[in-house]
């Protein structure tokens, strides 16, 4: 079965989608990633879609769902490298990726994650 690899980098997981996934591969990725967040105690997930030429409603929703699930599992998700044409098409499709944080590239995404996690740490400490 075809699968998308998930790499662990410190406390983050990095998913680089390099192929045009068909729907089942996308669903499998969803399962794999949530399981991996739990087993690796990951605090953040970076999903690099710079190789994707199109993101249709299905994949868009999958990304949104992933972000929501990660949040439930106490991990932040950042989608990086979305092509401008893809972004425009998504908007025209009427798909708003609510709750999905995006960044220009992996570097920025990492920075964003770090900042978010630091903030959370502070907030958590304050509210305790």
């Amino acid at each position, binding site marked *: 079965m*075809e*699968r*998308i*690899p998930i790499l662990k980098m410190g406390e983050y997981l990095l998913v680089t989608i*390099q*192929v*045009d*996934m*068909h*729907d*089942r*591969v996308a669903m499998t990725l969803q399962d794999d990633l949530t399981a991996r967040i739990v087993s690796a105690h990951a605090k953040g997930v970076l999903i690099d879609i710079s*190789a994707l*030429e*199109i*993101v*249709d*409603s*299905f994949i868009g*929703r999958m990304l949104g769902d992933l972000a929501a699930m990660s949040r439930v599992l106490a991990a932040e998700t950042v989608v990086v490298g979305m*092509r*401008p*044409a*893809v972004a*425009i*098409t998504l908007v*025209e*499709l*009427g*798909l708003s990726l609510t709750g999905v944080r995006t960044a220009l590239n992996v570097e920025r995404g990492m920075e964003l994650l770090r900042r978010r996690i630091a903030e959370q740490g502070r907030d958590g400490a304050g509210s305790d």
Partner: protein
Amino acid sequence: MSTGPASLLTLVIRHDQDVVTARQRAGTIADLLGFDSGEQTRIATAVSEIVRNAFRYAGAGQVEFLVDRGAQPQTLIIRVVDRGKGIPQLERVLNGSYKSSTGMGLGITGARRLMDEFQIESTPARGTRIVMRKVLPPRAPVLTEARVVTILRTIRSHQPAGMAEEFQRQNQELLRALDELQTRQEELVRLNRELEDTNRGVVALYAELDEKADHLRRADELKSRFLSNMTHEFRTPVNSIIGLCNLIVEDRQRDGHEVEQEVVYIRKAAEQLGELVNDLLDLAKVEAGKTPVRPAPVDVSKLFGALRGMLRPLLLNQAVALAFDAADDLPALITDEAKVSQILRNLISNALKFTERGEVRVGAALATNGKHIAFTVSDTGIGIAPEDQQRIFEEFTQIEHRLQRGVRGTGLGLPLSKRLAELLGGTISVSSEAGIGSTFSVTLPVRHSAAEEPALEFDWRAEPGKRPVLVVDDAADEHLIYEKLLKGTAFQIYPATTIEQAEHALGVIHPALVLLDIRLRGAESWDLLLRLRRDPATDQIPVIVVSALDERERALALGAQAYFSKPVPRRALLDTMDALTTSSSGSMRVLLVEDEEISRYLIAQALDGAYQLTACADAEAGLREARAHAADVILLDLMLPGITGWEMLDALREDASTRDVPVIIVSGSALDHAGRAHLLRHARDVISKADLTRERLLGAIAAAVGR
């Protein structure tokens, strides 16, 4: 110029992957037609949505890409057809008020927004047909016929999946590497677990070694204790002997002093020492597994009689009685009598030690299966606590008790008895109650398993002062009759039930006489008689033939000295035996070669008056004497300084003047059967210094000189 749309590509949608292929082809076609990248993405996305719907809701479908060159402006047409159930709430989907239960529902409206024109026909049960159009950009090259052909060729040759496949391959490799890592990690975990197990094993092994070392230490300690005990046991009689001897030597200056009692004491002490040595030897032999079992017929009542006699000296306490009772129906046992006797002796002497009053009862009864006999030794003594009942059979164990402290033991009696019982194929057990008494039971097979074949060798020991008589008779019970017949005489029977046994016996002992019973094996028995007469080594041995038939003439003709028909009259037989074996010896010369002064003295005393004795202290003098004055018999010690006894034997055999003189070896070491048989090949008889009595010596000399 033809009008009408030209088909660029038709794809059938049946699998997940086909959706991906369709949108990728859509992107490629859009690119070839001159759409910019934004439009390419829009077209691909719209195709993806619609094709997915066809695949997901209708199960399969078909997508066709066409280009309408005739139209102004030129248009890309995408037709997606399926044969599904149709879309039930098309109106609501199209006006956006429909909410899909699957959370989808964006596809149709989204695609409609992305394309220039969007037509949908959906007939229930007939399927859905969607036609989408996108007008080619104004700057796009005009689609001439040639251009369309080029595009078609490009589409067909295009491998849109090339890049994707490469990625896919790399993904797979990455996944494999990850899998491998995982496997390796699991392997490491497994290895670690294995190492932990091994470690646990090593720790356990260490513990075991520690335990063994501890056990050895304890055994060593016990042996040391045992040795110091034994040393004491040895020292006591030795001290007595030295003290008594000093007394005698000093008192000889005074006249009329009675030394007899002192000598009796000395003998007692010496006997005690001898017993100790024998016990130690027995133990060493049993421990080394070198004790042979020599089964022979055993008469239980006779065995009990002997035990009663042997143990009487231990009955010092008047308050304790020693009773023997054997059941009447006991069959003749075939077992090793010496070992049974040793076991019972141990048990009885133990019982006597630990009984202050009451009785010690020794019994024998046949087991219900008829194949085993049970000997029991019961006492009314101190008893043994249950926790000690197994321990007493372990070596060097002595249970602490007031009576135990009074009587010294080696702690070997019961373990030795147990081993001997096991050697005989039996068991030993104890039942006891503290303060009431103990009962030891020895269960032995009636027939020792090795007794199925009559053994050639058995434990036969020359009784001091007796002369061996070889009794050849194929019935074992007949031997018992002869044994009774010769009881109290100077003769000791050596039983042989087969001709082979008889011939073997002639190699082991030098009988003073042969009693040959002619029974069923008639022919064989006569043959034996003939052989005895023809062999120069045996032609001097008198033979008495006994038979149930009248065969006197034949017996005497074949060389027998006497004949008796059955039943044999005891008196007449004994007289004949005496007559045949008694010799007139007064003038005979005996040469003694012995370096030990005490032995020389003892032998000289023993032969005093009966023979003329010449004694030499070494082999050289002995040889000189033997050549100078012909001796009738030579007594030879093998352990001599300078020339050894063996060399002297050879020298005697080489010299014609001494070759025929019979030699009796006087051996200082205890001999087993093999050693004895070996020596008998070189000498007429072998006497151990341990049984060096006057009677034994005279008997041996008489037999050697041929009465």
